[in-house]
């Protein structure tokens, strides 16, 4: 698979502070990459540099040599909180976006209509953007970012401000786009990343701290464990006290981490039977995505 973009030692400094510190990774054509990290990790700064809104302090951004036109023509950008000219209708706004991105004026309106239809705003195309709800604004933001069929789509927290239904709809749209467009998006929600990501890039304090596919990251960080559900918090606490293996407790659940396939389930069940504690369920599980996120971004803290 061909590389669309490679960034090498990308750095952004504000005085002595480094918002992004020597970031190096590549984006392969027609794949999606999630930039993951807590607030202040440097996700928006990285996207802004790629979109041309910020100039890097050091490092290089190299696009595929086959792209000979203005780089900004092949980029679509959706900010976290897209703002629109409230006095324009969705169609006027999207058409203007298309024209400014180099779409032929003769077909710009047609392309804008098609794009608004695609993002589910076909019925609202003649409404002023000032009357739009948060979800509609996010869809319109996506429409202006894709109306010129960019090779690279940069999305800053595209779904974080949406309710679960809106989030699902936008993620479905992005999945459709993924087949023809390279997508780089930031998020702090790993569940979103799990749905449509080929590559995960974890950032902490501007630095890349982990990189790989979801499977690779899971294998590395999601240590297996037993989750034992008791009928009460007290019962779980009693088990943690008597457990022959290192254990921890969260409410009425006790966790035993499995190392080198030990302990086996039989041993756990035997100890539980001897303890005479009231349990509801025992299961073998792996760390949740949230736990992986915390492990990765807190590593080395």
């Amino acid at each position, binding site marked *: 698979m061909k590389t669309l973009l490679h960034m090498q030692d990308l750095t952004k400094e504000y005085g002595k502070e480094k918002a992004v510190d020597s970031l190096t990774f590549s984006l392969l054509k027609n794949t999606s990459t999630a930039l993951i990290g807590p607030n202040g990790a440097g996700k928006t700064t990285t996207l802004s540099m790629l979109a041309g809104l910020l100039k890097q302090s050091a490092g290089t951004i190299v696009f595929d040599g086959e792209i000979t036109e203005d780089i900004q023509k092949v980029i679509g950008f959706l900010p976290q909180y897209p*703002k629109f000219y409230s006095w324009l209708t969705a169609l006027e706004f999207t058409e*203007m976006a298309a024209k400014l991105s180099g779409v032929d004026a003769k077909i710009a309106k047609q392309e804008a209509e098609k794009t608004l239809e695609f993002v589910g705003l076909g019925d609202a195309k003649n409404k002023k953007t000032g009357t739009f709800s948060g979800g509609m604004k996010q869809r319109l933001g996506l429409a202006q970012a894709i109306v010129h069929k960019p090779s690279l789509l940069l999305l800053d927290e595209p779904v974080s401000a949406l309710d679960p239904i809106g989030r699902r709809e936008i993620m479905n749209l992005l999945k459709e786009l993924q087949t023809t467009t390279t997508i780089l998006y930031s998020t702090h929600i790993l569940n979103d990343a799990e749905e449509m990501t080929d590559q995960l890039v974890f950032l902490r304090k501007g630095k890349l701290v982990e990189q790989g596919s979801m499977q690779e990251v899971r294998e590395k960080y999601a240590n297996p464990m037993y989750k034992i559900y008791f009928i009460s918090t007290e019962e779980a606490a009693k088990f943690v006290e008597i457990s022959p293996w290192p254990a921890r407790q969260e409410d009425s659940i006790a966790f035993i981490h499995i190392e080198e396939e030990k302990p086996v389930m039989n041993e756990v069940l035997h100890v539980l039977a001897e303890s005479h504690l009231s349990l509801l369920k025992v299961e073998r599980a792996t760390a949740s995505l949230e736990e992986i996120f915390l492990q990765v971004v807190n590593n080395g803290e």
Partner: protein
Amino acid sequence: MVSNFSILFQKEWRENVRNFKILWIPLVFLLFGITEPLTNYYLPQILNAVGNMPEGTVFPFPEFTPEQIVMSTVSQYQFIGMLVITLGFAGIISRERKNGTATFLYVRPISYTSYVYSKLSIMCILVVGSVILGLLANLYYTNVLFGAVDVGAFVGFLGTYIVWLLFVVSIVLFTSAAFSTAIASIISLALVLFVQFIDALLGAYWTISPWKIPMYAGYVLNGSVDKKPFIWSLIITLLAIVLLIFGAVYFAKRNISKTKI
């Protein structure tokens, strides 16, 4: 670049039509243009009717020449009109940066010269158009109530005054590109009104200054202009306009990073 300009200008036009600036700015100048000759002409009757003056009070009212009425209107424009222009347009670039709408433009392959020119064009159309409309209405009433103004002198006066308006527009555009809306308003007001005031107070010591252009416009109307300082003032003002516009393009591009994302 040309196509960029037409798209961006269409956006500016739509904005000013839909926020009614296209209506209220000309109305302000039209109102002052009309009221000045009317109030000066009917002042004795107005005072008589509503002035609550004691019986037998007599005010000697000066006889105004038509040129004085036109210049009296210009002095209104020089204060209220300039306030309207500076405060009405101080955020023309900076507001888009602050509210984040500029992000949508700056991530696209736009020419910053076209971007600034689209702003400049709409400002010129609104400001120059409004002033011409106001002064033509003023000329009509002055002509009817006080007598004719020499058309050639009026055209010369109007041309000179338009140079001053372009200077003001360029100041506002430059400050809006370089600073936040609040600072742009303060600096524009200081440069347009305060410096004008200083020039009027201490200006006897020099004859060449962009801030003397409105005064020279009046001399052109009276036919009493001293050509040498007038021409030099015009040249310096035109140079300042060019520099301010170049500066506006430079700062509009430089301040992209200040856009709210």
